[in-house]
């Protein structure tokens, strides 16, 4: 079993108390139905210090690690996955600044995101095809004039795109004769030439609105660079790993939260003059669900601890191994989330299919976890690449 210290247990306790108080079931149905970004709840989470806890204290973070982010994600998503996802993901867009930003950028932007009202979204998922050996640029460098890039193209499905103030994206170095690098930008979304096209609500993650972001001859000089404008594959991998581990944590919460709902139900529901809990088929299902939750938790906690110990100086070899572990955590916890929430719906029967029972939402959110943060096939590729 994983031993948590008192401080970590307190984080979980505080997060659950917060979630139970603020994640109102009625609001969840409404926000989920209409695809609303829960600004107020996120601001309350900020006030209580739940946002960006692994960022250093000098940037108003709590100086903790990815491990604490994982247990926080799990606790929030266990109470309500859609709210939990929205809160945890609201800060993922700022992660590249924390990982690759200059000192000035970190000091300027991180407090705005952690304590202020600003949202940064990222489109680095659009570069994920790079892992699979493809390189189809979403954003094209049309020309370079006086050191400024003229960019055209479209970034698709950018999470929090419709409500963000800033965007981080990158283009593959092959477009500017720097094959080994990615050129990374931090741009305000109200800039000339940038158009935000909100997308209709998808299956899950409904409190994280998505948009396609279209570039029409957007002119960016080096003042829009993140750090000095170039990051290597290793750095991008570290970012992806940080995103994957948060999603893995959220998946643990989905699995555990839906299992809680199923347990509550089978203990009281009676059919054929017996509690559902007393049917062998129910006991079989519940025990399988418990196993899946614990397996996913162990692999995720383990990977989160490993990732927490990485720095910019971690060797490529070591990092690849850890990224592989993190990928395994994401793949297995997403699978656990999907399978356990599926079985929870099954145990609740027709009620599980009704929105007001708040079980089907776990399932919808779980499916999206298989697709986001690199879909699980790209995640698997990271595992394979490390193994061979």
């Amino acid at each position, binding site marked *: 079993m994983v031993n948590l210290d008192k401080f970590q247990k307190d984080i979980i306790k505080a997060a659950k108390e917060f979630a139970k108080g603020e994640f109102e079931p009625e609001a969840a149905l409404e926000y989920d139905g209409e695809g609303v970004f829960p600004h107020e709840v996120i601001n309350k989470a900020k006030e209580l210090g739940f946002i960006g806890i692994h960022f250093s204290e000098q940037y108003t973070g709590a100086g903790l690690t990815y491990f604490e982010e994982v247990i926080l994600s799990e606790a929030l998503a266990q109470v309500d996955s859609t709210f939990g996802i929205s809160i945890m993901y609201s800060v993922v867009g700022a992660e590249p600044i924390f990982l690759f930003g200059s000192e000035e950028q970190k000091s300027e932007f991180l407090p705005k995101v952690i304590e202020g009202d600003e949202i940064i979204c990222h489109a680095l998922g659009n570069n994920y095809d790079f892992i699979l050996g493809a390189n189809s640029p979403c954003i094209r460098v049309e020309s370079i004039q006086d050191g400024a890039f003229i960019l055209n193209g479209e970034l698709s499905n950018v999470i929090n795109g419709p409500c963000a103030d800033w965007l981080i994206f990158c283009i593959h170095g092959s477009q500017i004769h720097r094959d080994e690098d990615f050129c990374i930008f931090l741009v305000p979304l109200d800039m000339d030439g940038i158009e935000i096209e909100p997308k209709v609500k998808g299956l899950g993650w409904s409190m994280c609105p998505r948009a396609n972001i279209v570039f029409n001859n957007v002119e960016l000089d080096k003042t829009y660079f993140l750090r000095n404008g170039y990051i290597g594959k290793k750095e991008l991998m570290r970012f992806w790993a940080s995103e994957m581990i948060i999603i893995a944590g959220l998946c643990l919460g989905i699995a555990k939260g839906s299992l809680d709902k199923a347990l509550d139900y089978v203990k009281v529901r009676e059919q*054929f003059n017996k509690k559902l809990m007393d049917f062998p088929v129910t006991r079989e299902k519940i025990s399988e669900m418990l196993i899946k939750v614990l397996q996913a938790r162990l692999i995720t906690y383990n990977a989160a601890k490993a990732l927490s110990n990485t720095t910019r100086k971690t060797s490529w070899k070591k990092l690849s191994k850890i990224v592989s572990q993190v990928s395994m955590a994401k793949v297995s916890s997403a699978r656990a989330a999907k399978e356990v929430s599926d079985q929870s719906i099954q145990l609740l029967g027709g009620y599980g299919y009704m929105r007001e029972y708040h079980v089907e939402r776990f399932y919808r959110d779980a499916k999206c976890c298989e697709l986001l943060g690199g879909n699980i096939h790209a995640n698997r590729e990271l595992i394979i690449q490390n193994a061979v």
Partner: protein
Amino acid sequence: MQILPYKKEHHEFRKRLREFCKKEVIPNIPMWEQQKLVPKEVWQHMGRSGFLCPTVDKRYGGLGGDFLYSVILAEEIAYTNHSGLFASLHSDVVVPYIVSYGSEEIKQKYLPGCVKGDIITAVAMTEPDAGSDLSSIKTIAQDQGDYFVLNGSKTFISNGINCDLVVVAARDPDIEDPYKAMSLYLVEDGTEGFNKGNKLDKMGMHSQDTAELFFVNCKIPKKNILGQKTMVFLC
């Protein structure tokens, strides 16, 4: 190799149905999903085009086809990627109750409408506390001489809002053995004491009008019992 023995007529039926869906169903699905209902006119259009209840005898206006027609109907509606127009439930689950157990009078009264799409049907068995365990239903049908009086509530009833006719499972309160107490009754929409609840808000199947149904001192004619009394668990 053809596994199912489809004939030329089956293929033609499928072709016509697919054309119908392409024209009358698929373009409207986004609207139906939003309204959480398929308009009754679509059912009528479908019925008058010969696609509902394909196995019902020609005497009642049906096609008199074999079950392969039902298979085609189920496949082609599913192929449209929506489930609001639950024609299979109507044609191959509910209407067969009437065909199998209705008196000649009942068949003549309802079947032509079911075929034409003027009568949409539903079956009401599930209750809030009775899902898999059908014997535990609480809805009762009391024999009061000239009529039965129904009391109880049903849930998760597909076609619940659109239905014009419902097959309702209810117990005779005077019979103790739950397996012997149950019978099926036909209740028409508009019968006093029969009320439809709200559309249920579901994970998917948004255009399907799944609903709760309520029966409060709902009087129905004696002839609306389907088959023999208390036969539900015996057949």
